[in-house]
């Protein structure tokens, strides 16, 4: 009996440790971009606009600018924000999961690292959605499918212009309105 309890306990501890160690890689994805920061952002923005399902751009943030304003340096980071009421509405209408508004709008981060290469950071919407029951799981599953489309980039297509929100956007703080309906 003691051996059984010990084995179960050891299994729980091992699983927990494994989960703890792998949580970051499970929850978030990081992929390398073949383009520069601005071109990567621009291609994602245009993919979002072409994705359908009600997706619109809701902002473009540049947190590096806030660091510069404070007298310091950080490598470029830009966050593309997108929203679709098709997906946000059912979650916002359900009180038990309304707190997930904290994850809205959908964010995709584009940044440079010290190796000089550009990376794209995204949340693993599909996996995270499954943690919050069937409604959120289904919605986030669809978001995850669309998110894949956002990141499809064809080098043969010319670089599109980056869409900089007009009202206060691309600043260190405000995301600015990019015609978002969220």
């Amino acid at each position, binding site marked *: 009996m003691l051996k059984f309890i010990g084995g179960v306990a050891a299994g729980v501890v091992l699983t927990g440790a494994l*989960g703890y160690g792998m*949580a970051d890689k499970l*929850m978030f994805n990081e992929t390398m971009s073949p383009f*520069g*920061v*601005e*071109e990567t*952002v*621009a*291609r994602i923005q245009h993919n979002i606009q072409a994705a359908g399902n009600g997706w619109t751009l809701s902002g473009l*943030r*540049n*947190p590096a600018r*806030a*660091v*510069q*304003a*404070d*007298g*310091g*340096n950080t*490598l*470029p980071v830009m*966050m593309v924000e997108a929203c679709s009421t098709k997906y946000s509405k059912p979650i916002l209408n359900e009180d038990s999961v309304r707190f997930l508004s*904290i*994850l809205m709008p959908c964010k995709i981060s584009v940044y*440079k690292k*010290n*190796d*000089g290469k550009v990376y794209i950071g995204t949340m693993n919407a599909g996996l*995270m959605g*499954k*943690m*919050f029951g069937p409604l959120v799981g289904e919605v986030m599953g669809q978001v995850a499918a669309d998110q894949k489309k956002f990141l499809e980039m064809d080098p043969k297509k*010319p*670089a*599109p*212009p*980056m869409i900089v929100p007009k009202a*206060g956007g691309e*600043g*260190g*703080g*405000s995301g600015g309105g990019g015609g978002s309906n969220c």
Partner: protein
Amino acid sequence: MRKLFATVALLAAQALPCAWAATDPAPAPGPAPAAKPASKSTADHTKFKELQQAFKSGPEVTKACLACHTEAGKQITHTKHWTWEWMNPENKQVLGKKHVVNNFCTAVPSNYEFCTACHVGYGWKDANFDFKNETNVDCLVCHDTTGGYKKLPGLAGHPAYKEMEFPPKSGKMVKPADLAKVAQNVGPTSRATCGACHFLGGGGDAVKHGDLDTSLKNPGKYLDVHMDAKGLNFTCAACHATQGHNIPGSRYTPTAADKEAAHMRGKKDDTNAATCQSCHGQKPHKATGVRAKLNEHTDKLACQTCHIPQYARAQPTKMSWDWSTAGKLKDGKPFTVKDSGGHDAYDSKKGDFRYESHVIPEYVWLNGKVKYTLLGDPVNENGVTKINEFFGSPDDGASRIWPVKVFRGKQPYDLESKSLLVPHTAAGYGVRDDTAFWQNFQWEGALQAGAEAAGRPFGGKFGFVATEMTWPITHMVAPKEDALTCTQCHSKSGRLQNVKGIYLPGRDANPWLDLLGGLAALGTLLGVIAHGALRIYMNRKAG
């Protein structure tokens, strides 16, 4: 379990620093307008009768300047800023803008009227310019404090003397410079006056250097701790301390390793005043703790290597230029294409470009010796031709590891002589020139005209060769908190992964040494276990 996970993830997300999540802070209320501070100069140029006249040209202003500053003209005419010519005493190469070829706009010959907008003189429109005439010296371009003096490309170093459309056919009008006002308000050089040329080198803002662009006119502390407009606010001359109009600091013979102590006022010192060491000395870090270790790096590293972690931190710099694609037309007309950030990606006049910001430098050994590929020198048809080659090694005692910008491109060369060619690109303002590439987009005529102006043969057949030009990075010094950390170099894929000739802990390993160390550690562990086991065994046996 899943909910626990999600909650942890969300809490973690919440805990992330979110400086960007807040809206931009409201600007602090500015100070009340202050009265104009008293000038520190001992002369008020508005009171000088020589300057109270309606000047019609730049040389007229210069005559007035030289009436008091009797030696200034002579001093200037002996500088590289005037002659655009300098002989490297080590290898006897004749350099200077008049002679070198680069992989930006390439070369001056045949393009004088355009390029000499950045000459400290008036009237250099062809090879017959009179370099002895002191009244051709342009005092105002360096000493203007009004911001109202601008030399336009195509006017052979002159500013606009009448209202004119510039660029031609652009519909934009440029007003003439108020020469009397500018002359009466001369003062020390500034970042703006030096930057009028040095920020715009290579044909535009942030094109050439990577560590010099118009963002340094009014930089924040993050961009350059010395030039920080709200802090130390150094002018260029604060480091490039000038004597008799001779400005120290040259990329033709860069000071790779300054082994002198910090300069002392009053003490005669002919060494380069523009090095870091000339102020900070040889042991710039505090001599305690880990910082003391940093002082031991100064015999191998240039200060810039750690203290300029990236260049072009305020705006992108041009990284490549492919002349071979220039000349495409749409409906018979030249066109431009912008990249995603709004910078030129293609221009019919110049070809393809690539811009990048926050560029991680490349790192090379440099001992201060540089050799240029000049007109007539052979190119490497099957590889990359180095426009300038930096020399250095870890063993010569004179080299340091330097951060550099390597500018890559393709440019025309003569298939017969196998040497670089000069394209005749620009003509004088309003001049119709059928051989100028930027007017007719025909390479043959442009290269023939360029070769004639440069006194070089041209066989009529040309190709495009890959070239590299290397630029030392020395401006845009970041705050010390943003200097490179140890592991950014001391790691296998760190900044210095391609620098050869030194053993770098963390990057390099000796497999035999690693094996010996591993065996020693394993042996120690086994010894401890065996010893412990023996003690336990003996103890039980005895008990």
